[in-house]
């Protein structure tokens, strides 16, 4: 199988990797670039654990080929915090205990960020629909929704 050289932007940094043409972007992020925030849950786009933002749109990185990332802009959970300062979403997830095992958390944070980027003050229903593609099997969705609501409020400067 021919290896392909890919140049892309991840969290603002220009990066290169070499991958096989049928390798997923999730595997490239994790195994080629060492960015292990995005997780593999189902591998078929059902669970959302691998969610990232690609050119401003929330996607499952398990359903994107690594070669498709050429010259595109990727945001992953690793880019949320600024140095030691957590992003308000991350801080509110901790304050509201909106995570237990943490496997779904990077994907949910990116889904929540994508939602708030487009809709800074979503209703509870909009949050629940916005996060419907992310499965959590231990925390329960209520704390997650509360954390997103609180983060939205802070980001709005309320």
């Amino acid at each position, binding site marked *: 199988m021919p290896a392909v050289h890919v140049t892309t932007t991840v969290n603002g940094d220009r990066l290169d990797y070499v991958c096989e043409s049928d390798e997923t972007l999730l595997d490239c992020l994790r195994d080629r670039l060492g960015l292990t925030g995005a997780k593999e849950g189902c591998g*078929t*786009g059902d669970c959302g654990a691998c969610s990232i933002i690609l050119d401003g749109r929330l996607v499952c990185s398990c*359903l994107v080929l690594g070669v498709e990332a050429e010259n595109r802009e990727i945001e992953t959970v690793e880019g949320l915090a600024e140095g030691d300062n957590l992003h308000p979403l991350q801080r509110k997830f901790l304050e509201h205990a909106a995570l237990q095992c943490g496997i779904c958390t990077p994907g949910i944070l990116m889904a929540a960020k994508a939602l708030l980027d487009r809709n800074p003050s979503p209703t509870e229903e909009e949050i629940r629909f916005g996060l419907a593609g992310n499965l959590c099997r231990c925390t329960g969705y209520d704390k997650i929704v509360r954390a997103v609501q609180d983060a939205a409020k802070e980001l709005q400067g309320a």
Partner: protein
Amino acid sequence: MRYEAPVSLEAASALLAEAPAQSFVLAGGTDLLVRMKGGFVEPELIVDIKHIPDLQELRLDKDGFVIGAAVPCAALGENVELSAQWPGVVEAANLIGSKQIQGRCTIVGNLCNASPAADSVPALVTAAAKVRIRGRKGTRTVAIETIPVGPGKTSLAKGEFIEAVLLEKRRPRSADAYLRFIPRSEMDIAVVSAGVDLERDKAGVITKARVALGAVAPTVMLVEAAAAAIIGSKLEDKALTALAEACSAACQPINDKRGTVEFRTKVAGVLARRAAQIAYQRAGER
């Protein structure tokens, strides 16, 4: 596997015309990558059409809307004019999967995957959408319902691919609606679905209608008897009952764990009835 990302329609067409048997067009990839991972397909060639500028366009020109084959479903919902003129089509496209899936999936992919339960297809059939197909010898335009011919099978010839879905401009006092049944509120595939497009005169009498059903036969079904049942009416109870009966009579569903034959047959009528009421009300507001 060879991966190609042509930047012109001609280049894509040339690649697909000479392609090996196991060749696939990649737009959103939300079906193709799942099938690859499951070992159901082993592509020798993937042609990514997202770098072709024409296919990324969603535009309204003098004849109507042109929705390029690489436009993700999320972009349909973000288009104010399309959402205003074809709410049923947009609702259907935005019922597919999650936000993650909608950011990648396309209506042309939904069509060419040829699942009987595809959500956007019945809505596009009621909208009398056409598709522009490109092959080695140029383009041809056909009615959208001629594309799926059975589960997983389309009428496209080898080397052909769909460039765009074409929708006419909305006529006055007309509207569409689409409803599906799933056992939860989000993230599922239609068990039964119904789309209705209708036009009424100034007195409220229906002058034109199209009714399509999904997930109750091997392909989407345009049910002419159901349209005939409401044309000439003001959607009174009698007309609604006749519409529901015509829809149920047309159903040839499978029996599976997601829905029995009896359930699907009955619910097809119920959904068509409700979709017709929504479309009728919307048409009255125009």
